[in-house]
């Protein structure tokens, strides 16, 4: 039986974003059938609170991965900017908003340092951001020592206006964080897919030498992607601080792996040159829905959530690998012949 779609529909069908949308819809349908509470807008949007930082950061880590790099320091920058915000506000008498700006600038500098080493010294991105994650976690801890508050308690008691950043709901339903995420997603989309800068990012990922020869300042482009992802991490850190009501230096420690998972699920190639912002955004939402829906509807304990997310990642990457090369035979590969890509 042959089904013929119109060519345009076929294009949509083949797109990875479409598959992701299907996955999200499937998740929502299954969860809603199991527990109708899931569909209440208040609950559904409330679920975004826990994953909003993953969503925001992964948008911009996509940029990094498109240039062929990787960023595993974003989680530590979340903690660093949270504690800078807290200490600047509580112990150095900054206004809460200028403290937020300070945190963002500091994060930008951190991203810039890592980006500089990667782009201008030619060190592998994985090594630099690994070192960066140690360094910035450590600095976060040291900054927290500047405060009069014990570091394990966290700095609390923020003004109402700052806390409302995460408590305010548009029309009484949509949390403000979701709006920030949507705005950032649109911004990232325009930046990556509609501007000259975005095309340069892609070209650097496809072939850095070719990009260099065609007059693009590839090093600056690479460095800028790390600054972008660091600043987005600090935005996430600020929102997370507002949501939790306390500033701590270790709130981002567990974020690294989910961020990379979201970016990869979104269809970004880790070798660079391919990827999209809508894909990442959808993938982040898919992971978030899974992490939220399973405990609510199937009584899966929070601690077990690594398994479904890991399985989702594995199934999808294995599936994609098999689909891309249908003629793959395990035996020939084990014998050492490298299959044609």
């Amino acid at each position, binding site marked *: 039986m042959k089904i013929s779609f119109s060519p345009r529909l076929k294009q949509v069908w083949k797109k990875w974003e479409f598959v992701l949308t299907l996955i999200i819809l499937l998740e929502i349908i299954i969860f809603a059938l199991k527990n109708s509470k899931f569909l209440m807008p208040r609950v559904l949007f409330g679920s975004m609170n826990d994953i909003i930082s993953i969503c925001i950061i992964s948008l911009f880590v996509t940029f990094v991965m498109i240039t062929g790099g990787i960023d595993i320091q974003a989680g530590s920058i979340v903690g660093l900017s949270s504690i800078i915000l807290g200490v600047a506000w509580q112990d150095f008498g900054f206004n809460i908003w200028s403290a937020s700006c300070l945190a963002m600038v500091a994060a930008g500098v951190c991203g810039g340092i890592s980006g500089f*080493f990667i782009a201008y*010294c030619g060190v*592998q991105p994985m090594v630099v951001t*690994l070192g960066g994650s140690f360094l910035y976690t450590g600095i976060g801890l040291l900054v927290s020592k500047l405060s009069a508050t014990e570091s394990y308690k966290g700095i609390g008691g923020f003004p109402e206006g700052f806390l409302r950043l995460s408590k305010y709901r548009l029309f009484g339903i949509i949390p403000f964080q979701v709006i920030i995420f949507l705005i950032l997603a649109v911004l990232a989309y325009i930046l990556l897919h509609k501007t000259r800068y975005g095309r340069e990012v892609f070209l650097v990922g496809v072939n850095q030498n070719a990009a260099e020869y065609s007059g693009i300042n590839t090093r600056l482009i690479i460095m800028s992607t790390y600054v972008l992802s660091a600043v987005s991490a600090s935005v996430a850190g600020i929102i997370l601080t507002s949501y939790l009501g306390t500033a701590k230096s270790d709130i981002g420690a567990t974020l690294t792996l989910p961020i990379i998972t979201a970016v990869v699920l979104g269809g970004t190639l880790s070798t660079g040159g391919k990827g999209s912002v809508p894909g990442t955004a959808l993938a982040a939402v898919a992971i978030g829905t899974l992490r939220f829906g399973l405990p609510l509807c199937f009584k899966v304990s929070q601690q077990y959530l690594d398994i479904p997310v890991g399985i989702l990642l594995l199934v999808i990457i294995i599936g994609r690998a098999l689909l891309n090369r249908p003629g793959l035979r395990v035996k020939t590969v084990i014998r050492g012949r490298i299959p044609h890509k």
Partner: protein
Amino acid sequence: MRKILKSREINSFLFLAGLIFLVGLINPSFWKPVTIINCFNDSVVFTFLSAGIAFVILTGEIDVSIGAVLGLSAAVGATLLRDGYGVATALFAAVFIGTVVGVINGIGVAVLNIPSLIFTLGVNGVVRGIIYVYTKGAWVENLPADFTLMSNRFLTKNVTLFYGAAVLVVIIGHVILTRTRKGKYFVAVGDNSAGAALVGIPANKIKILAYVLCGIFSSVAGMIYASRIGFITPTAGNGYEMKAIAACVLGGLSLTGGVGSLAGASIGAVIMSSISRILVFLGFSSDYDNTITGFLLLTIVVINTSAQNHTVRKNRHEILLARTAQKGGEKT
């Protein structure tokens, strides 16, 4: 002689010696043999972990699931021991887990051709989750005393039994990798995977083998961890993968593959795990631990890469000079 001085593991060994020397200058009590040997003894878990992941890094891949493998094999091994099974059974179970995860990783990376960071990331999530399912989120405690005392047994006067075993394993692995034909395959695959396959090296088999070895080493590290710590939390080994990778980089391995050795990785592990001890002797609190680690890692890597780029450029320049000199010679 110059070749020896230039080799990367000697460089990191000199760095470690210099570090010990400097710390001793500031605080002479650090120079006691006991203190220095204890630095080595305490690094035994990381020595096994980084020696294991060194196989994978040498072939040009990466494995971020070793922390979870360490945790799972420690939890399973410790549960068996608590329930009255012998050490051999527990060790066998742990090694079995390491082998299974290694085979899965190897097949995913070598056969399915999935980028190793991403595949092992997924495996890491699943294995970490299995730890929670297996332990039901509780600690594994009350290990038999003869097992936990094993970590205090000494081989010679100061060197613990475990570290002695680690050194022996590392030496054997190092000799196999550098002196035997099959061992050199690992470096060849890491240097140029496609090229190695073309000259008849079973590149993918080697990669799978590297992952299996890595899994086994991490599960042995898990058992030693259980013996040293005496209880297993569900988060045991969390983040150890990053520290092991950092240790390998400190020990002179290149994450692009093909450069470095097992000996280097084990020296890196000693540097890595001595930092907090050194900080204590320098009078800092251990809060500086991460900062110093990150700073060291970045400095060493940046200097190393810059020096490499410099030599490449110098060589190119020399070749160019030699060519022009040749042409000039022909004319006269």
